[in-house]
C-alpha cells in the first residue's frame, strides 16, 4: 500500500441548481500509485473534470458539496482532503506542493498580466522560498527542462507571447516546480495540434520517469489514453462503470459502454465506407438521477427490471479489473 499516493473512496460532488441536484460525481472510488498514470476517460458530462476539481478542492464553494474520502497518503500517515477547509492554510499548502494540476487551455490558467516567469516563481515564494535569484534560476532550469528554447529570455515574456504548445510547456513547468507527488492533467493536449500533442505527451512521460510522480490523466481521447495510462477508469454520468489495466480495458472490455466507445471511433484501414458502430441517444444530464445503472437508457443490452432497478455492484472479472454491470453479476450469468 505504501505506493498509493491518493485514494478516493465513495466521492460525491453535487451541485445545487434551481432545477435540482446535479450529481456530477456520484460515488467514485479509485487509487493512484506512485510512478503510475491513471487514465480517466469519458464523454462530456461524465464527471471526470469535476472529480479532479474535487481532489484539488476548487469546485465552487457556494453551490457545490464534496463528500466521501480523498485520502492523501504520506509515509507518516494520511490526510483526508475532503475534510479540509478549501480556503484553509492546510489545503493551500497541499496545492502545488503535493498535488498540482494542469488544464486544457493554458491561456485561462495563466494570468495575462504577469510574466510567465513571475507566475512560475510565485509557487516557490508562496511555499517558502525567499531568494529571488535562486527562484529565477530554478524557473529557468525548469523551462529548459520542459523544452522551451531560450528560457532565459522566455521567462520574462507574457503568456500571450507564447504559442499554444509553449504555453502548455510553461504550465507544466509551473505545475511541477515544487515536485508534487501527484499531477492531475485535465485534457492537457486537447487544444493542441497533433504534432505538438505528441511532443507534450512524450514530455510528460519523461518527467514521470525522472521524478516518479503519479499522474491522473483525464481525457475524452481514447488514443491519448492508450498512450499514457497504466490503469484506466471509464466514467459515465458521474460513476466509474469499468476499471482495469490499460490492456484489460482496451483488449478485454466488459461494460457495454466501454465496448461501445471503443467501437465508435474510426480506426485506420478498418472502416472503409462502412458504418461506424454507434451508441444510441446522447449523454443525459445527471439531474436527480435514479439509483440505477447510468448507462441503462442507451444500452443495447438493457434488461428491464434489472438495469433500472438499482446500481449494479462492482464485479471483479480478473485481478485489477472490475465492472459495474448486471450482465456480470453472478446471479445473472447464465450457464
Amino acid at each position, binding site marked *: 500500500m505504501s505506493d498509493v499516493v491518493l485514494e478516493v473512496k465513495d466521492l460525491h460532488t453535487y451541485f445545487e441548481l434551481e432545477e435540482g441536484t446535479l450529481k456530477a460525481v456520484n460515488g467514485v472510488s479509485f487509487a493512484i500509485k506512485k510512478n503510475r498514470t491513471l487514465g480517466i476517460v469519458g464523454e462530456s458530462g461524465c464527471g471526470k473534470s469535476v472529480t479532479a476539481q474535487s481532489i484539488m478542492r476548487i469546485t465552487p464553494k457556494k453551490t457545490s458539496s464534496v463528500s466521501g474520502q480523498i485520502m492523501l497518503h504520506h509515509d507518516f500517515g494520511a490526510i483526508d482532503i475532503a475534510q479540509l477547509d478549501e480556503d484553509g492554510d492546510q489545503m493551500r499548502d497541499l496545492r502545488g506542493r503535493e498535488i498540482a494540476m494542469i488544464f486544457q487551455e493554458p491561456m485561462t490558467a495563466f494570468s495575462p498580466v504577469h510574466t510567465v516567469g513571475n507566475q512560475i516563481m510565485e509557487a516557490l515564494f508562496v511555499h517558502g522560498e525567499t531568494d529571488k535569484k535562486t527562484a529565477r534560476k530554478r524557473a529557468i532550469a525548469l523551462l529548459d527542462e520542459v523544452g522551451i528554447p531560450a528560457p532565459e529570455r522566455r521567462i520574462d515574456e507574457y503568456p500571450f507571447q507564447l504559442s499554444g504548445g509553449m504555453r502548455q510547456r510553461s504550465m507544466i513547468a509551473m505545475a511541477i516546480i515544487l515536485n508534487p507527488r501527484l499531477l492531475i492533467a485535465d485534457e492537457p493536449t486537447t487544444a493542441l495540434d497533433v504534432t505538438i500533442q505528441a511532443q507534450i505527451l512524450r514530455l510528460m512521460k519523461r518527467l514521470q520517469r525522472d521524478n516518479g510522480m503519479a499522474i491522473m490523466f483525464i481525457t475524452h481521447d481514447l*488514443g491519448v489514453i492508450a498512450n499514457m495510462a497504466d490503469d484506466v477508469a471509464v466514467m459515465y454520468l458521474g460513476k466509474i462503470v469499468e476499471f482495469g489495466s490499460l490492456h484489460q480495458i482496451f483488449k478485454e472490455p466488459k461494460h457495454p459502454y466501454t465496448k461501445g466507445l471503443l467501437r465508435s471511433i474510426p480506426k*485506420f484501414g478498418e472502416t472503409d465506407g462502412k458504418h461506424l458502430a454507434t451508441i444510441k441517444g446522447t449523454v443525459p444530464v445527471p439531474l436527480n438521477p435514479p439509483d440505477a445503472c447510468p448507462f441503462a437508457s442507451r444500452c443495447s443490452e438493457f434488461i428491464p427490471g434489472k438495469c433500472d432497478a438499482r446500481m449494479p455492484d462492482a464485479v471483479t472479472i480478473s485481478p485489477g479489473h472490475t465492472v459495474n454491470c448486471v450482465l456480470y453479476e453472478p446471479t445473472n450469468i447464465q450457464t
Partner: protein
Amino acid sequence: MSETSLLEVRGLTKYFPIEQGLLRRVVGHVRAVDQVSFSINRGRTLGLVGESGSGKTTLGRCVMRAIELTAGEIIFHHQGESTDLAQLSRREMREFRKHLQMIFQDPYSSLDPRKTVFDIVSEPLRINKIASGKALEQRVRKALELVGLDVRYMKRYPHAFSGGQRQRIGIARALSINPQLIICDEAVSALDVSVQAQILNLLKDLQDELGLTYLFIAHDLSVVEHVSNDVAVMYVGKLVEQAPTRLLFSRPRHPYTEALLSAIPRPDPDQPLPESGGVEGELPDPAHPPSGCYFHPRCPYAQQICREEEPPLLEVAPQQVAACHFADELELQGIED
C-alpha cells in the same frame, strides 16, 4: 476528368493584410492560402487536413465566397455549365449559393438562439424565395426527416437540443435547399465520440441517398481517413500532398504527411507513439514563413536545397502529388492497417 468533377479550384490564393499603426498602414501580408489547386468529383469526398494556421478553414470560406479571395478560380460544374464562382458578383453569388452549403464546427454558436428550428432550417429556402407557406413546411419536414430529427420539435429553440442534435439541425439547414456540394468545416470535432459516429454515419447515408459531394475539412486524421475518397494535406497555406486516401495513408510522399501520421495516438496499447524521434518544433508564423520549403526547419530530411528553393507540387505517382524535393527518393513511413 472535368465531365465528372463538380468543383475545380485553381490557384486559389488569399492574402490577409497586416496592418500597423494609427493609419493602419499595410506592412505585409499573411499568405493564408497560397496557390492551392484541387478538384472534387461528383458524389465524392475530399478530406482537407492540416494543423492550426494551415489555411484549411480560410480555403473553405473562400470556396463559399464567405470571404473574398485574392486570386484564383473556383469552377463549379452544374447542369452542363461551368461557372467560375470567383467571377460572380455578390448578387449572383447569393443566388448561386444554393448549390453549395456549409456545416460548421460549433453547433452552439452556429445556430441563432432566438430562432426556432423551423426558422433556422427554412432560412435558405426563404432567402432564395424557393418555397413559402405549405410547400416551405413540407421542405423543412423532409430535411428534418433526412437528418433523423423529430418533426414535432420544429417549433423549439436550439437550447433545447444536445450537441449532436444541434449538429443535425445545422445539417438540415444545409440540406433544405438541395445543394450539390457541402463544405464540412470540422463538422464533428466538437462532438463526443459516440455522437460523432452517429453524425459521420448520417453524412455517409446522405451522400449515398442524395449524391452529395463533400469538402471535409478536419484536423482529426482518423475521421478524415474514414470519410474521404481523397485527402489533401495543407501546411502554412500551401497544399503539400494530395492522393487517394489509401495511398496517402500507406505511402505518404511528403515528410509532413509522415510526421502527421506518426503523431496520431492510436487507440491501441500495442501501437504506442514512438518513444523518440517525431517532428520537433512548432508551426511557423504564417506572416513570416521560412525560406524555401516551409517545412524545412522541422523536417528530419532537410538538405541545403530545401532551405533555398520552394519545391513545386508534382505528380509523384498516379493520382498522387507532393511538394518535396526528395519525394522520389525518400522511403517514408505510412500507417499499416
